[in-house]
């Protein structure tokens, strides 16, 4: 494994399987009465969040604590640039207090990459703007692989990712990780929510694109719905939420287009009634809550691999 987890580019297919295997062990720990492993005892991990995300922050916090690390949460929202302090100065100051690893969320694409260049401790990207969210993609892949039958089971499977692809770091990371796991991705969105240059990009990276969800659903082995922000309407990306739902929502009627038992994923938080109907969110085939519990296991695995050091690796 590389020193940092900034992008899915940092991990090979084999390393992803290693991370999954460790995560499976960690997952079992969650079922125990005492959920503590001593692996990171004496280590300090800082969760530096420049952007709010209770869900991701708590997941990393629990993961760190179950590995016996000291976890410090720091919200740096609006604190640096507005005070005139550079990002570099902010992270150098925060990590100078004897920190062993940095988990970082930032609203700007590339921020974690830049920070990793300034620090000599492992940096884990907990989401950088519209760029990547590698631990989310790993937990999605882990959830799907377990659901579809274990290691190798994603080989040749077709997975739809549906929604606001332009602004989605979950999409950018998943398109890479699912390909590494052998699956083929079909990215579905209205043309206004397709990333720029997507045609060349899809050709180079071997995924498909579609504007028509109804054509795609009958042939997929899993479907991943992305959150759509209502404010995209004012940006002119689509006319009304009603029109979005009719075109791209996983409605009750559309559920019938899916083959029996096809897993439904959503990174959360969901807009029920916009991109996903209550019937789909609560369907027997919905894996949305599994994703949340897998999140802790995956983050334990990532922290373990990057921070536990040679003696315990």
């Amino acid at each position: 494994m590389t020193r940092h987890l900034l992008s899915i580019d940092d991990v090979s297919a084999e390393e992803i399987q290693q991370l999954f295997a460790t995560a499976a062990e960690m997952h079992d720990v969650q079922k125990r009465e005492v959920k503590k492993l001593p692996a990171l005892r004496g280590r300090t991990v800082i969760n530096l969040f420049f952007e709010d995300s209770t869900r991701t922050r708590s997941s990393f916090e629990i993961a760190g604590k179950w590995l016996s690390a000291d976890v410090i949460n720091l919200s740096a929202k609006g604190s640096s640039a507005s005070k005139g302090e550079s990002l570099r100065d902010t992270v150098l100051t925060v990590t100078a207090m004897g920190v062993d690893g940095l988990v970082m969320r930032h609203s700007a694409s590339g921020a974690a990459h830049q920070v990793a260049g300034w620090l000599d401790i492992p940096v884990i990207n907990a989401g950088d703007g519209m760029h990547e969210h590698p631990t989310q993609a790993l937990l999605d892949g882990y959830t799907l692989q377990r659901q579809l039958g274990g290691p190798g089971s994603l080989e040749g499977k077709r997975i739809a990712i549906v929604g606001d692809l332009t602004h989605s770091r979950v999409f950018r990371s998943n398109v890479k990780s699912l390909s590494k796991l052998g699956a083929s991705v079909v990215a579905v969105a209205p043309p206004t929510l397709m990333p720029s240059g997507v045609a060349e990009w899809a050709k180079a990276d071997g995924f498909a694109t579609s504007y028509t969800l109804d054509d795609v659903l009958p042939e997929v082995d899993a479907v991943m719905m992305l959150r759509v922000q209502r404010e995209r309407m004012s940006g002119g990306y689509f006319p009304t939420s009603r029109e979005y739902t009719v075109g791209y929502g996983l409605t009750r009627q559309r559920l019938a287009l899916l083959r029996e038992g096809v897993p439904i994923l959503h990174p959360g938080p969901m807009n029920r009634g916009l991109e996903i109907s209550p019937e789909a969110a609560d369907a027997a085939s919905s894996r949305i809550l599994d994703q949340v519990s897998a999140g802790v296991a995956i983050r334990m695995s990532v922290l373990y691999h990057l921070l536990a050091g040679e003696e315990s690796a």
Partner: protein
Amino acid sequence: MSLLIKGASVLGAEPTDVYVDGGVIREIGTVSATADEVVAASGLVLLPGLVDLHTHLRQPGREDAETVASGAAAAAAGGYTAVLAMANTSPVTDTAEAAVSVWELGREAGLADVFPVGAVTKGLAGEELAELALMNRSRAGVTVFSDDGRCVSDPRVMRRALEYVKAFGGVISQHSQDPSLAPYGSACCHEGELSGRLGLPGWPGVAEEVIVARDVMLARHTGSRVHVAHASTAGTVEVLRWAKAQAEKDGSWAVTAEVTPHHLLLTTDLLAGYDPTFKVNPPLRPAEDVEALRAALADGTIDAVATDHAPHARQDKEHAFVDAAFGMLGLEEALSVVSTVMVSSGLLDWAGVARVMSTTPARIAGLEGHGRPVAVGEPANLALVDPAATYVVDRDRSLSLSRNNPWHDRKLTGRVVSTYLRGKQTYAG
């Protein structure tokens, strides 16, 4: 103080001697006179001192990033004897007093003639015209007006500005960026496959092209002169080609354009590592655009090279990419970049370099003592260039106060070795 430059190749022609006295070229040919200073210039090319239409000197307001004096020193090191200092300082150069104060700081530094560019609109707000005529009538003699950093995006304001400067032969230099297609601040990267992959908000080429197209129509309608700052796309080149043909036919209006050294050499793929050194406005474009810009400079569709020298203090670049300041240094390496890109490839000869980096920019800005032929009776504003020198740029050797140098560690061919402002040496390499 007399100066004898021996055996220099004037604009790339046969070697000759050039004798200067009292700041004026007195004799060219085989000169037998002796001088206070004799420079052995065999193998060197002698050019008229370069003229930069587009420099940011940051004074007043950000003297930690650059001052008029440090910028003028960097200009001299780049072979420049005249620079036009953009108006987006703090406060903005939108009054005669502000313009005169910049002009005087340049005179005190004495390293290059500094001509302030006046803002088109008060405070660069794009709403009300600044006191254009008063700036023109001041000692600073402002002829070029620009809200650079911002686009005069309201077509009504642009129309009035173009009309108004006709009274005194001014020119509007436009930063062409439709802010609703490429929002200031957020649009930070050429919109294309790479911005899609990196998740960076895109700055599509069309946001430049629609403004260039609109402005040439407004210049035609008003019978005025518009100058396109830092052209960056092949589409802009197409519009310019059409517009120049029309302007020539009509004879009553004019359009000129400049390109930066970085848009002639660097491409958008440099952003893959999110290094804010390469964050610039307009953004670096793909190779197809770079090719089109080179061809347009060679065939005259683009008239001039201008640096858009944009110094920034270290901390202003050490933010996340989307939050970091736009801009890169340019004065010291401009000639080397043009030499590497245009001369080495045969797209321009040295006479062509003199045209695009000195003669034409001086003509566009209406400067009298600059961009003159290297001829007897002309002011001795000169740059001596070693066309064969190859070197690796080291940003720490800069005379600028800033270090945001996109050429750092890059190998360039052709280098300024000396600069003379009215016969006085302002740079010795």
